[in-house]
């Protein structure tokens, strides 16, 4: 029971990190990045290669992976977002889907079709708490996610860069008038989102095998989680992710493991049909 809850929260933390990456971009430029799941995959592969092939210490590999993904985030927005910034929403969305197809298949070419096992810093070790043994990696995921969420809160609330990024997300025109370099802030948002993906990737790697397909469902489910929580809201993305992770683990254990992946989408459709602003979201006002 406790083990299930912990592993649910760990998986939920991963969903929350991926969902956050989707939401910060959606808030800044009103585009859903369907490649976010593949960015996670990329982060995991880069770290795995650095550790397993180049034999770098694991924490250095994590750091380099996050830095490389930041660079990638910049390139991604230059190639797939910037030329399309004046186009309708759907054009950009389809372009991000194109990027995700490219990444998935390119990863299969570069790293081969075999999934790679990439252990975390604690290996397989278990922590025993009052007669219950818990996978140490799960604890690590929850703690790191918590730390990142706290960091993000202070980053957006207190630092100048964070505030400028937030101002850009709220109102681009007003931000421009305030002397904020909007396109640079948008680039930073993409960079930040890719770094979140890398963090999710290295945390997830020991639980999932690292494979070209690891990101596909992850991205969609994280998107679903952000809608379940209330799309566009940061607490909504985090709570929606945690909720989805716990729900999935318990549904798989007590209802049906065959349909484990379906529950996210069943809940999503129910939420959309009956409470479209999500479980924890703010009121959506349509522009009329």
């Amino acid at each position: 029971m406790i083990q299930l809850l912990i592993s649910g929260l760990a998986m939920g933390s991963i969903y929350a990190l991926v969902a956050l990456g989707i939401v910060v971009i959606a808030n800044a430029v009103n585009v859903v990045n369907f490649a976010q799941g593949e960015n996670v995959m990329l982060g995991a592969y880069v770290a795995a290669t650095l550790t397993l092939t180049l034999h770098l210490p694991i924490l250095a590999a994590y750091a380099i992976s996050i830095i490389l993904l930041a660079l990638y985030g910049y390139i991604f927005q230059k190639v797939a977002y910037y030329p399309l910034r004046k186009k309708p929403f759907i054009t950009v969305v389809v372009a991000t889907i194109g990027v995700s197809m490219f990444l998935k298949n390119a990863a299969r070419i570069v790293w081969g079709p075999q999934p790679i096992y990439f252990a975390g810093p604690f290996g397989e070790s278990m922590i025993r708490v009052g007669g219950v043994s818990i996978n140490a990696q799960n604890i690590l995921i929850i703690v790191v996610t918590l730390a990142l969420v706290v960091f993000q809160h202070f980053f957006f609330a207190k630092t100048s860069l964070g505030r400028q990024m937030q101002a850009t997300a709220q109102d681009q025109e007003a931000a421009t008038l305030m002397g904020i370099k909007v396109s640079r802030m948008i680039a930073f948002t993409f960079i930040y989102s890719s770094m979140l993906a890398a963090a999710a990737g290295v945390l997830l790697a020991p639980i999932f095998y690292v494979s070209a397909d690891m990101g596909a469902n992850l991205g969609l489910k994280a998107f679903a989680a952000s809608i379940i929580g209330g799309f566009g809201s940061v607490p909504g993305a985090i709570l929606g992710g945690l909720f989805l992770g716990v729900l999935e683990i318990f549904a798989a254990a007590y209802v049906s493991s065959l349909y484990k992946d379906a529950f996210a989408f069943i809940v999503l459709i129910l939420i959309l049909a009956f409470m479209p602003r999500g479980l924890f979201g703010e009121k959506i006002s349509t522009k009329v």
Partner: protein
Amino acid sequence: MNKKVLRYLVFILLAAVILSIPGVMPNNYYRGLANLSLIYVIVALGLNFIYGYTGYISFAQAAFFGIGAYTTALLGVDHHISFWLALPLSGIMASLFGVLIGIPSLKLTGHYLAMATIGFGIIVQMLMQNWTSFTHGATGVGNIPGISLGGFTISSASQYYYFLLFFVVLSILVTWSIEHSNLGRSFKAVREDEIAAATSGINLTFTKVFSFALSAFFAGIAGGLYASMSAYISPDTFSFDQSIVFFTMVLIGGAGTMLGPVIGAILLTFVPELLRFMKEYYMALFGIGIVLIMIFIPQGIVNVFAKDGQFAEWITAKRTARVESPQKDL
């Protein structure tokens, strides 16, 4: 030579090319591909109703296609029902699901609708894979009965080509008459401005749900044809990725035009096959291709060659109102 004669000549030439395809194709593999492209034309024409004309995103077209395919397959294999009864039932079954997904769409747009249709598609595919007692599970359905017409059984790829061509022509005629009906005009009115459409007396609920149902119906019919032609179907054909391919067909060809989905479907069936010599690289290149198309010709091929519907005017030899491709801020 005046314009009228030229037009007839082009038509005759085009008809000759279309009719001679099975003879021109080097082998049965390419004939099969031509047949597949005809089936995809029907799917894309369907998707064009909901996205092109009505302006709503649907990433569930492969699921509707699959529902049609499974209806014909399961009715034929498990219940020995003739193709001619199963085919309309495939269309109806798919459109019932279209209504089911169309109803929540009344409240949803943009991201939300995209995600709802993706979720629906994934659930449908999961049922196909795991509900073994009903759908035969992940191994798929085999030995689907073929099509016979008054004692004559369609067997060769060429015969299938002409049979499918009949359905494509029928679909185009239906699309054309809907586009030029009040219903078609309501679709476009909803796309351009929902509130204005409602004020002009258009029943929004009916129009949107009907558009979804119509999209699904086309996909369902195409699915039934696909199941009977290939004699074997499996769940992996009806994936989210396939829905994206269908969507890209409509976008590349030109959403909201009649010719666009036709061109897009043919192009996206043949080009990946021609690139197959690149083996595993081609799916990666396909992804890059989508990005490039979105950057350079997001309005679709048809709209590049014929700005402001000149092409349609030329084909139909009459002036039609200028129709913009969907640019609504979704």
